[in-house]
């Protein structure tokens, strides 16, 4: 049967029509072989435009359609749906991009633009002459999500997904959930106690019937695709059987080994068998194998002897657990930049009384190592003069990171306020580059701190050195144009946020891209901020870029909404533009298997009858769920048995021919 192509050329108002002579394009292409109807219209994507296509398909009995308009990225789905409404297979369609790749870039030469538009339309006509109906298939969705990282972002994502009725695995590599937020003292600008607002959420997550918390565990493998991921989790040995441990705490009390606590950022100590902090979830200890005397030397074992329920198990081994999930949310958060390795002017970490903002949080925290008394690490004295230095590692192209870490201006204002409030006769000096306080009630908070007496000095610090028990801070006041010397008791650095250690590995496993600084890249910075370019993988919190708590929580809820929408479907449609192997032509060499980046090709044995006898032989077989339609196999196949639906050899060759004519 002869092909009956419908050709619809769009003016896009003056976007195309102002440059390309649209009626002439119609005139020059309407006699192309197979074109049964051709017309132009002001706005083809509008409702009357779509109705025009539908009515002409029916009126002229068209069997395939070309629309020449904007980029297919924008309206290919729109027009496919329109021709489906007209009763055609939606893949009996092609578009000519005569706006982004013609009228907009050649507006200085209208004649040439018109000629090119004619060529581009002919290319689309050549392709559409070769298209065949394609059919979407569907795959089931595993209605369970994995959340990697259980800081405030991960907890919020897990709670929101769980509340929408889906199961969630909340994965955390530390022995407790809570992340960085539980280390903080107060939160700006409301001065809510951080633990008071975050620990109830931790408990809520632990008690939610849809949430399975896996702490002290890491993601080690991800296979599969959107809706059907197969993940492997390594449960690290805790050496304590949490199914029988009651969390009585006798073991931690009696353990003879004391080491610096990472939770306290080296400001306090913990035992070798430990619970990170009193409100930890789960509130049961783990043994640190690097410091436990029994695990290192086979001596001690006092915890095992004392445990009233016999929960200590030195024989415990790491365990691999396999799970199936439909969606993955990455919420791996941030670390602070290792300033000690970069900033010689601040002493490379030699001075005990030069600390980070997060360490200051522990100092001022009632449940911290000093019970909330601000005491400097070197001698435990209360500091009277505290100097804050902002943008340490942030906005420093030369030595560290280009970006602004966003939260530091506000937490430094908070710290200055706490110094003035808690220390009698306390002075706070803040060296800053700019003060950035965009956020609800943020600038008001900063102003209040200035009014309380915090002294903001615009300039950088060039050197810190020890003089007696004082730290001399040498800086510049660029507003006064003079040098500044301050004899400080304590110096607090507002260090840059960087992606947490190991996030690169998570990116590799989940197949998500990271930017030059290691932050995960969202699918679109404005319109798809919580999705990634990998279907079924979403982002929340500071792993995507530096953020404060309100932004993190909003983004987490956004990601959860996306996951809930995905998991609310029983099954999902798959793209039909995937590889097809012609078994008659396939020799079973499996070169295609080698080049497939998605591991979608495997071998399969078929039985053929040759001279009346059944003969078994091997051919390549495509997993339609895994194939992403890249077409690498089609080029590798020497027999020409592999072909890509929607981009067949014949279609591409006819496009080449059309453009070379």
């Amino acid at each position, binding site marked *: 049967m002869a092909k009956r192509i419908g050709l619809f050329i769009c003016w896009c108002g003056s976007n195309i029509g102002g440059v390309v002579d649209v009626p002439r394009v119609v005139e020059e292409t309407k006699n192309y072989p197979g074109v049964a109807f051709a017309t132009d219209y002001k706005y083809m994507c509008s409702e009357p435009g779509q109705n025009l296509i539908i009515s002409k398909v029916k009126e002229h009995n068209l069997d395939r359609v070309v629309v020449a308009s904007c980029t297919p990225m924008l309206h290919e789905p729109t027009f496919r749906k329109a021709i489906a409404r007209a009763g055609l297979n939606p893949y009996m369609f092609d578009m000519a*991009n005569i706006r*982004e790749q013609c009228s907009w870039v050649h507006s200085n030469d209208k004649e040439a633009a018109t000629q090119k538009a004619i060529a581009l339309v002919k290319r689309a006509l050549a392709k559409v002459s070769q298209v065949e109906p394609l059919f979407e298939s569907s795959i089931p969705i595993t209605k369970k999500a994995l959340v990697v990282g259980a800081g405030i972002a991960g907890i919020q994502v897990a709670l929101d997904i769980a509340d929408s009725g889906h199961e969630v695995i909340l994965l955390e590599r530390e022995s407790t959930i809570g992340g960085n937020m539980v280390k903080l003292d107060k939160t700006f600008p409301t001065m809510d106690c951080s633990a008071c607002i975050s620990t109830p959420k931790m408990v809520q997550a632990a008690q939610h019937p849809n949430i399975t918390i896996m702490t002290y565990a890491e993601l080690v493998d991800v296979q599969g695709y959107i809706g059907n991921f197969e993940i492997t989790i390594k449960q690290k040995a805790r050496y304590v059987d949490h199914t029988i441990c009651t969390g009585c705490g006798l073991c931690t009390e009696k353990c003879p080994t004391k080491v610096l606590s990472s939770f306290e950022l080296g400001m306090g100590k913990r035992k070798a068998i430990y619970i990170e902090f009193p409100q930890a979830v789960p509130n049961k200890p783990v043994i640190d194998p690097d410091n436990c005397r029994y695990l290192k030397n086979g001596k001690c074992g006092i915890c095992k002897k004392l445990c009233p329920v016999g929960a200590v198990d030195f024989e415990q081994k790491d365990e691999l657990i396999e799970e199936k999930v439909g969606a993955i949310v990455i919420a791996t958060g941030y670390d602070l930049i290792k300033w000690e390795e970069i900033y010689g002017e601040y002493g490379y970490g030699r001075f005990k009384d030069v600390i980070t903002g997060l360490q200051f949080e522990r100092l001022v925290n009632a449940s911290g190592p000093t019970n909330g008394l601000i005491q400097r690490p070197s001698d435990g004295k209360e500091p009277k003069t505290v100097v804050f230095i902002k943008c340490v590692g942030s906005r420093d192209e030369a030595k560290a990171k280009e970006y602004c870490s966003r939260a530091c201006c506000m937490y430094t204002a908070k710290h200055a306020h706490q110094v003035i409030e808690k220390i009698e006769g306390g002075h706070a000096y803040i060296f800053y580059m700019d003060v950035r306080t965009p956020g609800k009630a943020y600038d008001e908070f900063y102003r209040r701190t200035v009014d309380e007496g915090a002294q903001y000095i615009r300039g950088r610090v060039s050197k810190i050195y020890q003089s007696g028990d004082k730290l001399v801070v040498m800086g510049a006041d660029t507003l006064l144009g003079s040098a500044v010397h301050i004899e400080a008791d304590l110096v607090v650095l507002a260090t840059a946020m960087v992606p947490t250690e190991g996030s690169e590995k998570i990116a590799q496993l989940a197949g998500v891209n990271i930017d030059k600084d290691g932050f995960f890249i969202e699918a679109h910075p404005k319109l798809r901020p919580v999705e990634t370019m990998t279907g079924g993988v979403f982002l929340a919190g500071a792993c995507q870029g530096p953020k404060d708590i309100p932004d993190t929580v909003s983004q987490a809820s956004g990601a959860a909404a996306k996951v809930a929408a995905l998991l609310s479907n029983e099954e999902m449609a798959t793209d039909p533009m995937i590889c097809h192997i012609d078994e008659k032509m396939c020799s079973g060499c499996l070169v295609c298997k080698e080049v497939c980046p998605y591991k979608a090709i495997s071998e399969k044995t078929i039985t053929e009858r040759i001279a009346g006898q059944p003969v078994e032989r091997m051919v390549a077989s495509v997993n339609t769920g895994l194939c992403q339609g890249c077409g690498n196999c089609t080029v590798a196949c020497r027999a020409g048995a592999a072909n890509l639906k929607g981009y067949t050899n014949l279609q591409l060759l006819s496009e080449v021919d059309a453009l070379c004519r």
Partner: protein
Amino acid sequence: MSIDTENKEFYPNIVGFTCNWCSYTGADLAGVSRMKYKPNVKVIRVPCSGRVNPAFVLRAFQKGADGVLVSG
């Protein structure tokens, strides 16, 4: 190939194969940014530069293209 005999100028006809996910979108971005370039290059959208069979390139030259751009 077309040669303007009066000005002795050469207008090569260039066939481009651009990956749907990067270069094709890049060409769109050039349009959105209202950049200008010569109209000699005409693009065929492919799902991946790995889809470009060398035979397509040869076919283009065989049929008279002066240049082929594969980008992805």
